[in-house]
């Protein structure tokens, strides 16, 4: 059981983000792409926050977010994108899918930890 799901096709990013959150007392699961993310989220109802890359093979992060709200009908899990992208067009698509926030890589854990805790406890 985890309360944060980190979705990224890069093992470097998965290890970095999940490692930081675990060292700070959070329970974290990981997924390698959007398809894997959907499956992990479906299997674990304790997940309260999804932190996801955008550009990934098999299924990108924005499509995954749309499927979380649509296909899985999960309207409550918080979704934050962690990506090198900063395109207004992508952000608008994310907002339409109900994502909560956007972080431009590289990940700086100290800058987001308090907010992540709040999103998990909400």
């Amino acid at each position, binding site marked *: 059981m985890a309360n944060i799901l980190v979705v990224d*096709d*890069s*093992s*470097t*990013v998965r290890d970095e983000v999940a490692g930081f959150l675990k060292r700070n007392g959070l329970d974290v699961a990981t997924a390698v792409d959007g398809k894997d993310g959907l499956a992990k989220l479906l299997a674990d109802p304790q997940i309260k926050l999804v932190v996801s890359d955008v*550009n*990934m*093979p098999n299924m990108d992060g924005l499509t995954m977010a749309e499927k979380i709200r649509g296909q899985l009908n999960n309207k409550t899990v918080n979704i*934050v994108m962690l*990506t*090198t*992208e*900063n*395109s*207004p*067009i992508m*952000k608008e698509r*994310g*907002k339409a899918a109900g*994502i*909560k*926030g*956007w*972080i*431009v*890589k*590289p*990940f*700086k854990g100290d*800058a*987001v930890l308090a*907010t992540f805790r709040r999103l998990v406890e909400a």
Partner: protein
Amino acid sequence: MITDRAKAGFDRLLVASLKSGMSAGGASVRVGAVGSLDRIRENKIVVLTVSSYLFRAIAILYFRPDAATRAWFDRNAEEGAPALADAEFLDRVAECGNVCCGALNRELGAFFPHVGMSTPNIIDKDCMRYADLLACSLTKHYEIVLEGGPTLFATLCVADYGLVDFHVDPSAEAAVDTGELEMF
């Protein structure tokens, strides 16, 4: 056709992207131009593209999977941690290329809102012998000197499909604060 000022813009943006992307973790980075591929002895490359209907920019980061390069990409490991496996090392280099090219993509997005970026691919440097087939209007090579680490190299190739013209203000700072959470 790529105008001279657009060529200068691509050059400035790539240098700034390499400096910001390679310095993650606080290392000092110096980026300078090199004349040809002849100086580049690295045998692997990370390839990423930033594409639009007007151009395709190909960013290439050369590296050698030797001890010095592995040590630099593992410099933040905890004491006593096992050495990087091959797959982990390659993923770190690929992610480094992803962050550098991501910065280039964001800056180009200010001029060309429709640009899109690929995911990174690692291939042999020998593939560069086919780069001429891309008929690029701009090809430039760079040396990246990492403080306390190896010297890496990069190439930027840009193929155009129409008039490419934009101007980068040399005094302008990058527009994005990385790592900050923007809440919606």
